[in-house]
């Protein structure tokens, strides 16, 4: 029978001797931590929503402090996303790559692999996809699928190294995936200031893709096929995660991989599949942007997606459907940021700050799911 654990004195600095100690004894109120055995669904939801609410309140306060009139904030927010089909369309266009990046991050997190190299994987994916476009590889009707495939391969190639190093040498993937972001970025600059520089404008970006190399338009507003692509991917991954045997085994791995191995679950194979899958989807996120939004390879198309991907995966609890919701929320926030920048001169960094507040608030809230706190006099 295991009984609950307790810990005392989270913040207590106790005088060692004498009267100071005696005085301290009489005053000392310490938080006693007791790990929770079970957490009900309602409790989980309450804590999670409270964390979101707290972050929301802090964000509004921050924006008002930074100079946005409180009355205008709500008007801006609603006009950014919901007032017109055009506004909604631009939020959706922004949502699509965020969904793909969030999915990429959440696949890896789901098996406990801290892939924080999503930007590097996006760059490699975009670079290989651009290579297909620049060198006109394959017949035109197959050009886009080939670009997407190349993007997946690029992302997989960029994550394979960290995955292998973790499996073989127990090297932390956090540092290896992150360092490779910088390597990928410099590779990108090398290409854009070198062989792939746009000969027409001499700007550091590639030539514009031909029509066959761009995701076609949907025919509603300015949206391209990136939106259904992202939605389809989310749906497919939702099926894998919650309706297939693979999803069950993935969760088992996260809970206890030693036990899974001892019971004959192909742990290595499943982990490799999940890690490579994460890389492939990361590459696809790069493809979604260059082929669906920018129509060319640019030097900053990926900026911020590492952070956004982690925030989305975290808010969504690695659930693919949740990823879609969180990505939509984040896209709205970003459009709001752009609009505030234009109309009130608020630096866009403030939106990043709000994202950080959300991630910290939700991360901190898990404390209340993990522990029960009693404030009591030390006895």
């Amino acid at each position, binding site marked *: *029978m295991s*009984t609950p654990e307790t810990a005392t004195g989270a913040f207590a600095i106790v005088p060692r001797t004498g009267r100071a100690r005696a005085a301290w004894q009489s005053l000392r109120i310490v938080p006693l931590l007791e790990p929770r055995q079970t957490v009900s669904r309602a409790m989980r939801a309450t804590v999670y929503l409270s964390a979101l609410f707290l972050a929301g309140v802090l964000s509004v306060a921050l924006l008002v402090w930074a100079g946005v009139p409180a009355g205008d904030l709500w008007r801006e927010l609603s006009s950014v996303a919901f007032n017109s089909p055009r506004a909604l369309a631009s939020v959706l266009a922004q949502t699509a790559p965020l969904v793909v990046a969030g999915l990429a991050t959440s696949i890896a997190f789901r098996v406990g692999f801290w892939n924080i190299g999503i930007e590097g994987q996006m760059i490699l994916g975009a670079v290989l996809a651009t290579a297909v476009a620049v060198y006109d590889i394959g017949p035109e009707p197959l050009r886009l699928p080939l670009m997407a495939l190349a993007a997946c391969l690029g992302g997989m190639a960029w994550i394979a190294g960290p995955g292998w190093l973790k499996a073989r040498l127990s090297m932390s993937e956090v540092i290896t995936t992150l360092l490779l972001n910088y390597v990928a970025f410099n590779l990108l600059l090398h290409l854009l200031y070198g062989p792939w520089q746009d000969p027409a404008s001499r700007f550091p970006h590639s030539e514009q893709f031909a029509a066959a190399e761009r995701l076609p338009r949907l025919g509603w507003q300015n949206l391209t096929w990136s939106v259904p692509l992202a939605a389809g991917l989310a749906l497919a991954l939702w099926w894998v995660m919650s309706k297939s*045997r693979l999803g069950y085994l993935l*969760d088992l791995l996260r*809970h206890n991989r030693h036990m899974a191995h001892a*019971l004959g*679950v192909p742990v290595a194979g499943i982990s490799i599949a999940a890690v490579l899958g994460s890389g492939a989807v990361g590459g696809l996120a790069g493809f979604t942007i260059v082929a669906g939004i920018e129509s060319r390879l640019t030097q900053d198309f990926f900026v911020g997606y590492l952070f956004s991907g982690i925030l989305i995966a975290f808010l969504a609890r690695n659930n693919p459907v949740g990823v879609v919701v969180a990505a939509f929320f984040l896209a709205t926030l970003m459009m709001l940021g752009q609009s505030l920048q234009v109309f009130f001169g608020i630096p866009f960094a403030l939106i990043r700050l709000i994202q950080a507040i959300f991630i910290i608030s939700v991360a901190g809230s898990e404390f209340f799911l993990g522990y029960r706190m009693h404030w009591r006099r030390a*006895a």
Partner: protein
Amino acid sequence: MGSMRMRGIDKSFGGFKALDKVDFEARPGEVHALLGENGAGKSTLMSVACGLYAPDSGEIEVDGRPVQIDGARRAVELGIGIVHQHSRLVEAFTVRDNLALFNPGRPVDDVMRDAQAAARDLGFEIAPGRLAGQLGVADQQRLEILKVIVSGARLVILDEPTAILSDAEGAMLMELVRRLAQSGRAVVLVTHKLHEALAHSDRITVMRGGKRVAEALPQDMTPQTLTHLIVGANVAEAFIPSGAVGAPVLWLENVFVPGEGRQRGLAGASLSLKAGEIYGVAGVSGNGQAELAAVICGIGTPTQGRIMMADRGDITHQGPADRRRQGLAAIPADRYRHALAGSASVADNFAVPGALAGAYGPWAWFNRGIMRRQTRDAIARNDVQGVRSTGQPASLLSGGNAQKLVIAREFQGKPRVVLAHSPSRGLDVRAAAAVHDRLRQARDAGAAVIVISEDLDEILLLSDRIGVLNAGRIAAEFDAPADRAAIGAAMVHHEHA
């Protein structure tokens, strides 16, 4: 000096009452045995005594003065020292640094001088420069005792000190315990071993279900009366020999596996498991038990030697998946590492073999409804108590019920080979008896059963044949009924060769 009196101690965790109005007294010069099963509240009571838990109510007196023990440091100031069941040494530190850590506020040289003197009084030597992690288990335990004595402990609490020692090492420790008492200290010996309490204590307190059920002198007690007090009923388990021993099913030929850290690993282990027989592996912890279990499960790979299975041939390089397809069932020692995922649900834990075999649908469609139904049936059949829903985390099960869940899963198909490593560790007598019963049933159904246990009583109770694992190989084999003393001798023979 050194007396402690606890009166009416209550302590609850959540809704669970761990201690219920417990009285306890330790006197100078006396060894007081605190006896009870796992979960009886012994450790909780001692955690209160040394300041790790604050009691919900009750009084504590040290040397006749009422005190509040609000932390480990306060306990040390009051002269109360505890030696935990699991080592609380910093293995990366030297002996000297470990002693210094535990005795702050004094020059290290003084601490070391006291330690040397105390060690000599108790009849052993210390090597200040050695890393604590490189000491043997018995030496680590002596260092722990020294640690608390040097810090001025007049009351020394030893929590299950002989659990991981060989019989010989245990006997030496008991001598040391006697010397501690003779030096005028009060000693509390927390144990679940009857004979230890009867032979080495001056007073016995028995706990059961968080309550003190008796305090008595050893000369007034017999093993039978004590058992009855501890368990609360008569649970008599006896050896039942096998009806029909068949042909060998699985055998190891001269298997070598390197050990990890201080572990010895396997060095030329050979043994053969027969259908319808329980083969018990006795031995002192750290002589290759973990590695033996690992190679049989397919988690570990031998560097030399072969593992053979009847009509399957050489299975040395097969992983756990293949071994299980050939009829292996395993009850590992480390329950929440190799047997169960504590944070996953009861159903998820039960369903692994079925899921792999496709019992809940093809790859693309995993039918959780069938999974939950099957789990519910299996739980009922195997008498797993305390499951409110199949969705509850497995970590909420008590030790005995968690073990029953493992058995329910492992014995679903008809296993040909059953590996059970310390199957009753942490279980109370009744739960242990239930587990032993299931092992006998598997044997009687024709399985080859191997039980690896450091508890010699368990081995003697179950085994038709006993192998002694010493320095990584089977040093001797005995047929039941076997002579306990002879097995004990084989366990420690040439131990340091």
